[in-house]
Structures are given as structure tokens and as C-alpha cells.
């Protein structure tokens, strides 16, 4: 039985973490250098990232392209092997789980993809698409049962009953994303990684899908890792928010704290860059426009990754890496200046 759903971030925080990541680092080889090609060069995609998510909680994972947010999402689901660090689910270390146990584990953790146009096989009907996980995991007794379960899932996701026998091309982006969500829910998972689930959708439809995800969380007591680059959407769905920059976590705090009192200079710049649909306000707004470039992840400079663009940079930032520290209750920041 799932624990009661928390609406306040604080109450969630006291329960044991549902998902926990400690010191996660992920490197990808990108070619060789040296005289005989003996030295492999690596992209440091994710570096020493730690966080936990409580049961029924939504953690928003925010970062720009190349910040490692998708890589973290995949690693948590054990789709990418970490180079270092541990991943725990329901209190068990799952970093090295293999074979049958891993497959059993996958039932409980599912992924909703970003692009509803690319993530559904165009040659399968909606029935086949949504029933596939049920069949793979042996959760459908017979074709009739599978059909009933699929119909129920589609209904839950707000799709009409005649959806089952049609192909993905017959649906709009928002409807396809609903199909993707139904498919992810088929195995009745506890934990869902939603990787930019609304980025590809139009504004008027985006809200429909965000609301659906929120309703499903209420009904099924789901835990979400919600990956996004759009700070306005994340605010509405997340209990807590983690900000990534170039593979490192720079700030993690309850949602209201991130928006009302951002402490890392990157978070501040990111928030001030989001345009607000209110012309007089937007014209008068003080904005921090960052200059400079994101460091090359193949040979990141020593010290803070944000040093090349930071308005508050000083000597210490060049040599030493700031650790994520609790600067205020539940508000962790990795910055020497704060």
C-alpha cells in the first residue's frame, strides 16, 4: 500500500527516500589520443551527482542542453551504466542488479519520452503499443484481458475508447503523448522518469498533459523525476527542484525556495532569462544576461564548471570545486560566493 500522497514538500522529505542517487558520475569515451592512441578521452557527462526523491514526490531536474539531465534519468532507470556512484530504489542498492531481477525491477520504474512522434512505432496499433509491456512481463492473461487493461489505461489517460485499433499517425502530438503515458503506466510502476514530456507540445496542449501527469500522481501515488528545461512548467509540477550545470548539480531545494530565493548565480541567471508574458513587466525586468560559453565537457576546467560565465567568479573558483552544502534548511547550493 502506498503511503499517503504528500502535497507539501516538507512532509515528503521526512519519509524514507523512494529513489536515491549517491555520487553518480557518468563518462562516455569519445576517442583516443596519445602517440599510439593509448589514452582514451572521456566526456564527463555527469559528475558526482546526489539526490533523493520521496515516495509520491516530484523532483524537477532542470538544466540546459548538455547538462546531463537526460543521462541522469537513464542511469536511474539502469539504462546507462554509471562510472561511479550508487542508485537505490525502495532502499535497495540496484546499481549492479542483473538479469531476471533487473527485469523485475524495470516493471516498477518506467520512462515517458520527450518526442511523441519518434517514440511510438508507426506500424503498431495503439493496442499493440500499450499491450506490449503487459505481454513481455506476463501481466496479461489472454488477448481479451490485455484489451481490457489497455482500454482502461487509455481511458485513464483521457483518450476515447475507439483509440485502441488505430495507428499513431491518426493522433495529434498531445494525444500521442497520452498514449506514451498509458504505455508507461501499463505495468503499474511506482516511479516514472518523465524526460521533457511536454517540450514538443504546443502551449495549449502542454497544460493538458501536465495536468494529466498531476492527476495520475494523485490517483496512483506515483513518484516522478521530471526532466525539463522549461522553468515555468517545472514550477507547477515539482515539489523540489534540482538545477544542473554542465554535469554537476549546483542547487537543490523545495520549489518555492528555488523561485523566491535562488542562491546559485546560475539559477539566478536562468530564472531571469525566462521571458514573462507581460510586456510592461518584461521591459522593466532586471535580467542577468550571461556571457561566455559552456565549458567543453571533454576537458572541463578544474574548479567550478560555471566559472567561465559566472558574474561572481573569484580566484578560489578556478582551482577548487565547490561542494553541495546546506546553506539554508533543505536548500543545498554548490557555490563559494554564497
Amino acid at each position: 500500500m502506498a503511503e499517503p500522497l504528500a502535497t507539501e514538500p516538507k512532509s515528503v522529505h521526512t519519509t524514507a527516500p523512494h529513489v536515491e542517487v549517491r555520487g553518480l558520475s557518468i563518462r562516455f569515451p569519445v576517442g583516443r589520443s596519445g602517440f599510439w592512441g593509448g589514452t582514451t578521452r572521456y566526456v564527463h557527462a555527469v559528475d558526482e551527482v546526489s539526490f533523493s526523491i520521496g515516495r509520491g514526490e516530484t523532483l524537477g531536474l532542470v538544466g540546459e542542453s548538455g547538462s546531463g539531465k537526460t543521462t541522469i534519468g537513464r542511469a536511474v532507470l539502469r539504462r546507462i551504466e554509471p562510472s561511479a556512484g550508487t542508485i537505490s530504489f525502495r532502499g535497495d542498492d540496484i546499481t549492479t542488479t542483473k538479469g531476471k531481477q533487473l527485469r523485475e525491477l524495470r516493471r516498477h520504474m518506467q520512462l515517458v519520452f520527450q518526442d511523441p512522434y519518434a517514440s511510438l512505432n508507426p506500424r503498431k496499433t495503439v493496442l499493440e503499443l500499450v499491450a506490449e509491456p503487459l505481454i513481455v512481463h506476463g501481466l496479461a492473461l489472454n488477448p481479451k484481458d490485455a484489451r481490457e487493461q489497455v482500454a482502461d489505461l487509455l481511458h485513464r489517460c483521457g483518450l476515447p475508447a475507439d483509440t485502441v485499433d488505430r495507428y499513431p499517425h491518426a493522433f495529434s502530438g498531445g494525444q500521442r503523448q497520452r498514449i506514451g503515458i498509458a504505455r508507461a503506466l501499463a505495468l503499474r510502476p511506482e516511479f516514472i522518469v518523465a524526460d521533457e514530456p511536454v517540450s514538443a507540445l504546443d502551449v495549449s496542449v502542454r497544460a493538458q498533459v501536465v495536468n494529466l501527469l498531476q492527476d495520475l500522481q494523485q490517483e496512483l501515488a506515483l513518484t516522478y523525476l521530471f526532466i525539463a528545461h522549461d522553468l515555468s512548467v517545472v514550477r507547477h509540477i515539482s515539489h523540489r527542484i534540482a538545477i544542473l550545470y554542465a554535469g554537476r548539480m549546483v542547487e537543490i531545494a523545495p520549489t518555492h525556495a528555488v523561485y523566491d530565493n535562488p542562491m546559485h548565480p546560475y539559477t539566478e541567471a536562468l530564472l531571469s532569462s525566462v521571458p514573462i508574458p507581460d510586456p510592461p513587466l518584461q521591459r522593466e525586468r532586471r535580467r542577468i544576461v550571461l556571457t561566455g560559453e559552456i565549458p567543453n565537457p571533454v576537458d572541463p576546467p578544474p574548479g567550478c564548471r560555471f566559472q567561465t560565465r559566472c558574474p561572481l567568479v573569484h580566484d578560489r573558483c578556478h582551482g577548487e570545486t565547490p561542494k553541495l552544502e546546506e546553506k539554508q534548511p533543505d536548500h543545498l547550493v554548490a557555490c563559494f560566493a554564497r
Partner: protein
Amino acid sequence: MNSVNAAPSLANPAEKEAPLLEVDHLEVQFFTRRGTVQAVRQVSFSIERGETLGVVGESGSGKSVMAQTLLGLTELPGRITGGDVRWKGESLVHDASATLARVRGNEIAMIFQDPMTSLNPVFTIGTQISEVLRRHLGHTRKQALVRAAELLDLVGIANAAARVKQYPHELSGGMRQRVLIAMALACEPELLVADEPTTALDVTIQAQILDLIGDLQRELSLTVLLITHDLGVVAGLCNRVAVMYSGKLVELASADDLYANPAHPYSAGLLRSTPRLDVVMPRLVSIEGTPPDMISPPPGCPFAARCDLAVTECLEEMPGLHTYPDGRKVACWRAFEVGRG
């Protein structure tokens, strides 16, 4: 109203010159195997010298297709089937190949959404900017390269002299968009058409590019047509905003008026469903339903099926674009009734 403050660079209205660009009952259709897609339907508006006009709409609203007609870029199976686009009184649609060759890239320049695919990967940045200068202004190769470096400097690329020798893959997305803006500005155009210039970029880079467009607009007294789906992007940059839905222009108003008091239910819905960074809402508001199929659009208002205010009239007859006393244009039988009881 404070729309005057909003438009410091707007030309003195007393001069009463003809609009720079006039789109007149424009119709664009795509002839596909499934049928004729009515992408742009009877769209009319004009752009005054020095203003920044935003065109807002969701995917399939016809905003990009409309923009392509301004530069004669409509490609088959698409065809302009009616109406006209006039640049300083000259048609860019009818018998326009000579006019287009002169105007395109010279007086009207365009930047596109995707800076990753808009540059040719096998030529250096310098060569690609030079091409425009040599083609339209008759620069020599050497002159053109010097000018190319100046242009890169103008759009805020540091170390421009070295950058001209680099290839597109050596630059980040934001840098490439700057290069494309430099290329668009090469002939000192009067009108810059920017089709979703920041959609492919990260927010912090988007802020840089929007600032750049704003600065250039002021410094070079550029006229800008900004096409976007993001109401936030429009808010900081545009004097006037045109809202498109299903190939129709549904509302045209000053930016301040539109955001403060949208007259068309779709404009209102779009604003309501745009989550704001500075406002916490318990629940996001969405517009239920989806836009109509553009092959057989409904006879009445295309938004009627999703509209809370729709009456029988809306389903039967398409409302025309009506000009109201406050100067805004709205195509709705129940304009200004949004949010009233």
C-alpha cells in the same frame, strides 16, 4: 495609451508614409495527396517602418508559411493561391522574380529556427557571409572578408578576425545563430524576418539573442517581423502582435493591449495556458480539444469547437477581421466578451 512608450523607435506617425510591407488577403494552399491544405487563409496586415511585429501561433497556424511568402520561399506542393504581398508598393507575388532577386537577402533578410542546419558545413563562416556581400553589393573577396569580420563583431562575436576562418561545427548553437544574424544584416536590410529565432536555443542563450535583436533594431532602425509560438519572447520585444489560428489572423493589437486585455477567446486562452514563471497556479489552464483539420476546415470560426463563448453563429459563419475604435483588429463574433461574466 502607453503603447507610445512601448514604441520609442516607431516612425513619426505624422509622416503618413505607405507601409513598408503589406500583406493583402493572402492565401496559401498545399496540394497534397490527401487534399488541399488551406495553410494561410485571407490574411491581411501591414508593417510600418521601424516597428517590431510579433506573429504568434501554435504549430499549423500558418505563421511560418506566411513568412515564407514574403521572400518568395513558398515551395511546392505549396502555392500562393490568392492575395498579394507588397513591398513598398511592389508585388512580391505576381511576376516577381526580378523584384525578389533584388529584394531578397538585400532589403528583406530572414533568419531561421535551426542554426544547426541553416549553415553549410563545408564552407567557413567568412565564406558564407562573403557570398551575400559579393552577390548583392559587388564586394571583392578581400573586401567581403573584412566586412564579414566587422559584421561578426557587430553581433557580439569576440575575436571576429579568427572566427571568419572557422567552420560551423566549431561554433555553439548560440554562436551559429549570431552568424546567421550577421549574414542577414550583411546588406543592411530594412526588414528582418525572424522565424522562431530562439526556439532551438537554451534559455540563457535565448536571452542573449533576443537582447541582440532588440539592440540591432534600435541601432540600425531595423523593422522586425518576429515569428514565434512563445508569448514570453514577444512580450519583451514587440510593439504589435498578430495572433494566428488555423491559417487565419484572429487578432492584431498593440502588445500591451493584447496581454492586458485579449479580445479574441483564442488569444485569451493562449495567454491563460502559458505558465508564468512569476505566478504560482494550483493547476495549469489548458484549451480543451485540438485545432481543426486544415484540409476541410469548418465553415464557421475555426476556434468555435474549442471556444467557451461559441454560439450558433460562430459555427456557421466565419467572422471577418473587424477594426475596433481602439485600433485593434479582431475576427470574432463575440470579441471583447472574454472574461466578462
